């Protein structure tokens, strides 16, 4: 595998700016990312074997951000400039799967209504004798035995097609989806992120077997075939484990489960994601502190998480919720609230409004309060 297509662990200096982000030409934000060694190996293996990489893990553990981190690295390792002289970002397509998504939508959509509307406009234009109507006496479909008239000379080949020409050519009504665009990309190995694939119907994965295995597809409306590109896209698929995926689909994927980060990793992530202003420094340090007599935010968060993991019906909070939790603390400091008040909040988290940033249901919050009460009683 070429070094330019390799995924590595970046040093702090090579990461996107901490707190702030570097935006690409589609205004996507890129955050610092700290993968484990095994995740790095998994990504590189998927790139070498040209197989999709299926990532599972709790919501908010960094599955989607991995694809962005990969795109960021590929862009930095392969600097290029586009026609406008701007930095050219690595081709990156995101397909956010919904419960009503169909596999075909990711490849292309055909604007049948638009074609119908244009056909109607052609007829009206003809009746009014307008220039855009096409050849005189031309109908929306050619008569039997006649081919489509091409009245324009080659000099005008770059001009906008007339409505009549547009109606004759169904391919003008095709709009490619993320997977279709990724397969049409011939210059580079595009990165395709299929996000939250388990949201879709159970057979969704099976409908993509051919495209993800052979990397080609056909457009039934025009009969066109989009062949396999010289370098197939790098496909990263994420799942929240809400529904099982078809076995035939799983067989074609590499599978990696992203574990919840440990304390050290959590500290690194927080420091890189949150930029504290000077007046917030004290509370920031308090939050990041991993060992002190009065428990810091990380300790408190881990206790909450451990309690929820043991409870079968609860949903343990994730990394992104911890980021929100810290942001809430920093915001409080930013509003000029006393640090001591905030420390008290942390201690009395079960009664604080900030608890809502990490426990999202009443049942989970009630359970946490009961556990805290028991803890206090045991201490006495």
């Amino acid at each position, binding site marked *: *595998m070429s070094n330019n297509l390799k995924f590595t662990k970046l040093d702090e200096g090579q990461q996107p700016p901490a707190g702030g982000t570097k935006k690409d030409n589609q205004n996507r934000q890129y955050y610092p990312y700290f993968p484990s060694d*095994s995740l790095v*190996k*998994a990504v*590189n*293996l998927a790139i*070498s*074997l040209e*197989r999709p990489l*299926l990532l*599972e893990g709790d919501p908010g553990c960094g599955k989607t951000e991995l694809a962005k981190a990969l795109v960021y690295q590929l862009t930095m390792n392969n600097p290029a400039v586009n026609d406008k002289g701007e930095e050219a970002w690595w081709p990156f397509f995101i397909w956010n799967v919904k419960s009503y998504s169909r596999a075909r939508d990711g490849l292309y959509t055909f604007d*049948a*209504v638009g*074609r*119908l509307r244009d*056909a*109607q*406009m*052609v*007829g*009206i*234009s*003809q*009746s009014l004798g307008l220039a855009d109507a096409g050849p005189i006496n031309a*109908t*929306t*479909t050619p008569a039997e035995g006649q081919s489509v008239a091409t009245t324009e000379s080659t000099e005008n080949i770059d001009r906008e097609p007339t409505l009549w020409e547009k*109606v004759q050519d169904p391919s003008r009504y095709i709009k490619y989806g993320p997977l279709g665009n990724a397969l049409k990309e011939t210059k580079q190995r595009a990165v395709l992120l299929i996000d939250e694939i388990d949201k879709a119907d*159970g057979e969704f994965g099976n409908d993509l077997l051919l495209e993800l295995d052979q990397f080609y597809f056909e457009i039934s409306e025009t009969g066109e075939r989009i062949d396999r590109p010289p370098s197939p896209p790098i496909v990263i698929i994420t*799942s929240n*484990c*809400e*529904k*099982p*995926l078809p*076995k035939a689909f*799983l*067989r*074609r994927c*590499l*599978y*990696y*489960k992203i574990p919840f980060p440990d304390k050290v990793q959590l500290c690194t992530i927080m420091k890189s994601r949150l930029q504290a202003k000077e007046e917030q420094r004290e509370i920031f340090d308090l939050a990041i502190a991993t060992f002190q007599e009065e428990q810091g935010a990380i300790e408190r968060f881990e206790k909450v998480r451990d309690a929820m993991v*043991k409870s*079968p019906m609860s949903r343990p909070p994730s990394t992104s919720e911890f980021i929100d939790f810290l942001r809430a603390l920093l915001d409080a400091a930013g509003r000029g609230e006393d640090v001591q008040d905030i420390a008290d909040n942390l201690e009395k988290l079960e009664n604080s409004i900030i608890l809502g940033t990490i426990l999202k249901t009443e049942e989970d919050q009630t359970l946490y309060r009961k556990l805290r009460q028991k803890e206090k009683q045991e201490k006495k």
Partner: protein
Amino acid sequence: MESELPLEKLCEPLPFWDLFDCWHSHNPNSTLEEYVCLQRSIWLGAVKTWSDLKEVSALLWVKPSDGDRQQQLFDRTFTEYQKRLLAAAPPPVVEITENIKKQRQDELKTIIGQMPPLPLRKSALPEGDRQEAGAVKLPAQQRQLVNHRWKFVLEDLPISAMQVKETWQLWRQLQPLREQEFIDVERTVASVSPGGYIEEIIWQRDGVHKVNLLVLVDTGDNMLTYLPALEKLFEAIKRNRITPAQIYRFTGYPWRFLYGWQQPQKSVVVDFLLPQLHPDRTILLVVSDCGAALGREDPEREQGTLRFLQRWQGSVMPIIWLNPVSAERWVGTPAAAIQQQLRGWMLTLEQFNKSDIGRLLTAGGWV
């Protein structure tokens, strides 16, 4: 774990095939394709040490499972395989020289010198030093259970979370399918007049390979005794279990009007219905005795039915006529002429059940 893999294993034509075989015996869902991926990974140089091998094969072979059971099974399988392979490796050949012999003898003497003396037999001990084993009753406090709390984790449930996820679909309630229709763009565009007016939007049903079933039922007096036999079929169409399908009533023979099955007072004009039928996808099923129940000739009915067939023949795929009256009674009635016209597509109930469409409907329990 960081030890290098044996070179001869890496250079085999099918490297670590035995590992895959071992895994496959525990997990029959694994496929050859997954082994080929491991082979390719080895050739690409991604596997050099035992930990590389474990990581890569886990990435390729372990799939999502409830409570990480597959991962645990894989870990066990790999550990056993590794132990077996290392144990089977021939021990290094050491040339036993005189020096080594002497060295080993010295080692033995040292070990023997360090061994503790054997304990004396009980009978050899003085009486006061003998000890007997006996039960000791602990005080009540110590006998109390230390931990009364029940610890409950998801894995203790008799049914796994993955099983719940896989079987939830069985709990889904059947909903009647609404008819999915899409604009047949090509035919609609072709129908746009030179004035630009869309005269008609032509719809096509979802799914190119579906067929539409159109059932016309004779509800005349002669058919009253036969209709209960087909009640299930009518009910299935009414409740959208057979879909897409429509059912209409008529008496005698269908001509200008048909009547709704559920709303008999509501008429449908045949002239409006026929253009809506797709000629390549509509099957017409007519349920009528065709005059066979009367047992006599009826020229008017015969002619009317023939005209009906001629009119409908271009608009539907096959016309299947289900005549519940037995075939012997068709002779001398309009049914015989119609059967000739249909070239054998007038069927008794028994023949219908044996036909393709009949078998399909029987399989669904609707006939």
